[in-house]
């Protein structure tokens, strides 16, 4: 019975023009993005280092203003001279010096020196020239990983990672939310338009809900995976690099670690899967409460924006933070922790929280449905909605 119903729902989904549009969008989004993005050539590492070295040199201008007079600034100045010379060495080792081991060693030392400077409060260095702590930690994790796994410092596979992280920045979060909300916005409301045909099936409400969520999840996730694979194949061919062992940095337990690209993608897609299910369940709940397809999207978006509004208004509403966990890319890269000022937000906490919320949603849906059977009509008779 359940599977026959599911087959029927699938048929309906296939006939719906909106689903085709979303499917096509998901299929080609990644590839188009990569095609557009490939017009820009990524900056090679030696140039990046040169820029870093020059920017760092500018700090001396500011330090000079105060180091004779303020002792803290003098200390910072000391450290900075060491940092600067190491930076110079790095540019050599990456260029003609060609010694990646030394490069890495120097890099690690620079990081520890910079952390020392942070301890001193960065006195004398203007805001825009301070290297943030997170950057230092990230660089550290990256260098360690490269050292431990004997990888070359620079490679085209870095470029692939760059692409991936760029496309995910754009996609994960608002765009993803909107797509899932749009595809699922009529899951229950659709039944209202064919009420006398679909009412009265000997199938429990939860079974129907499971069927609908399942179908929408499968269809969305399949096209997402296909689209991403299509895009990545394109990028890999273009750069002739497809190594999935190259490191990507993620945030874990208030620190940064590097993991291989393959592992990273697994995390991302697990996260997206959970987020998809959660958003679909939310759509069902909103359908039950508001009975209108547009309400679904508007309220779904509204909920997502609540933490931003609260923050802008100055409320420190930590209980709203989990809403933002849907942007799994930001969670993984640690940017969300920085944005919300809550350093305990990492992938594992977020996934657990999302899982709990999913279970809660199922519970609420179940509860509301159960309630309709136990309500007693007082003034007016009660009508069955779904």
């Amino acid at each position, binding site marked *: *019975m359940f599977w*026959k*119903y599911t087959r*029927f729902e699938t*048929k*309906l989904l296939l*006939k719906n023009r909106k689903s085709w549009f979303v499917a096509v969008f998901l299929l080609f989004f990644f590839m188009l993005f990569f095609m557009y993005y490939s017009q820009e050539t990524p900056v090679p590492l030696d140039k990046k280092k040169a820029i870093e070295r020059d920017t760092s040199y500018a700090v001396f201008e500011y330090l000079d203003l105060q180091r004779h007079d303020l002792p803290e600034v003098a200390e910072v100045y000391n450290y900075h001279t060491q940092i600067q010379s190491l930076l110079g060495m790095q540019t050599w080792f990456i260029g003609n010096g060609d010694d990646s081991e030394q490069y890495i060693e120097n890099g690690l030392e620079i990081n520890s020196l910079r952390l020392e400077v942070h301890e001193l409060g960065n006195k004398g260095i203007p805001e825009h020239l301070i290297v943030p702590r997170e950057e230092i930690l990230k660089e550290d994790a990256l260098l360690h990983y490269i050292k431990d796994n004997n990888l070359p410092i620079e490679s085209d596979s870095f470029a692939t990672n760059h692409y991936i992280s760029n496309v995910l920045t754009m996609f994960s979060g608002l765009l993803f939310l909107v797509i899932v909300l749009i595809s699922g916005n009529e899951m229950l409301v659709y039944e209202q*338009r*064919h*009420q*006398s*045909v*679909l*009412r*009265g*099936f*000997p*199938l*429990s*409400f939860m079974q129907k809900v499971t069927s609908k969520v399942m179908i929408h999840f499968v269809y969305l996730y399949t096209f997402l995976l296909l689209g991403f694979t299509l895009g990545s194949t394109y990028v890999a061919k273009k750069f002739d690099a497809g190594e999935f062992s190259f490191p990507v940095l993620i945030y874990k337990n208030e620190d940064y670690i590097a993991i291989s690209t393959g592992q990273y993608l697994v995390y991302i897609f697990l996260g997206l899967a959970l987020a998809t299910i959660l958003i679909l369940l939310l759509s069902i709940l909103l359908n039950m409460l508001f009975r209108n397809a547009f309400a679904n999207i508007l309220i779904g978006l509204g909920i997502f924006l609540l933490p931003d509004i609260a923050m802008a208004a100055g409320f420190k509403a930590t209980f709203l933070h989990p809403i933002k966990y849907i942007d799994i890319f930001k969670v993984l890269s640690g940017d969300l922790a920085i944005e919300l000022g809550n350093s305990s937000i990492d992938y594992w906490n977020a996934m657990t929280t999302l899982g709990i919320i999913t279970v809660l949603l199922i519970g609420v849906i179940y509860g509301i*449905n*159960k309630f309709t*059977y136990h*309500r007693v*009509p*007082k*003034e*007016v*008779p*009660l*009508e*069955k909605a779904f």
Partner: protein
Amino acid sequence: MLKLENISVKYKDKVVLDNLSLTAKSGEIIGLVAPNGTGKTTLFNVISNFLKPNKGNVTFNGDLQYKTERKEISIHKQLATFPDQGDLFEELTGVDHMKLYANMWKGTTKHVKEIYEQLQMEGYVKKKVKTYSLGMRQRLCFAMIAAADTPIMLMDGVMNGLDVANVSLISKRLMQMKQEGKLIFVASHLLANLDLYADRVIYLKGGDIIHQQPLNESTDEYMKLELTPEQYEKLAYTLPDDHLYIADHLCCIPIKNMSMDEQKEWVVRLSAYKGKELTIGPLGTVEYYEKYYHEF
């Protein structure tokens, strides 16, 4: 099989059903007759629990009621309702719809072909619903509920918009279903048509059943003649006490207690009224309808 006890459906300003009770067994076709807006659809909605009444119980097979979802599903496994043709899926075919109903209730689609062949639908049943006329859609809706093949069926307006041939097809099928032991409720405005297959006809008025007319018991025969009120006034004192004057136009004289001679006498006397039909037969749904609802 089905029992309704003291069903009341009241809104703030209106009473639709008032303390209605009813029992029905399998192998029956029950006609439901009432003018528009007197609660036929509401009654059906209550029976299938699409509407929860203010008061009253619906009981199936002696002990099953709509108290929890699981019980509701058990009941719905045995009950199917007639869909509205406006709710059909335009992009799907007739067969798709029938298979849906067959799968959801019966679990198999083997019998679908036989149904649409008997209903003479082969010509179009594989095309998309958006190409259908009203009659074809109505037939499809009936085919769907036939494919569901549940022991209890609620049919609200099954003959709407159908031509004479189609009405006959469906009536035949209904009689066949009754032989198979189904309990079928038919709400209809085709009153004479009900006489063909219904076992009893229920008349709703004021929120309750005001009359139940069993149709296959041996019924009394009447002589029926159309008379204007003036003609009736003149004749009234000669008529036997148990005569009826229905809806200000039909005079009915029971003949069961009359001898052959008395009957002949009456036939001659009544034939004097030229230009009107004199029929001899039992009172049908039409006559009862007029009797009870004439004020409208």
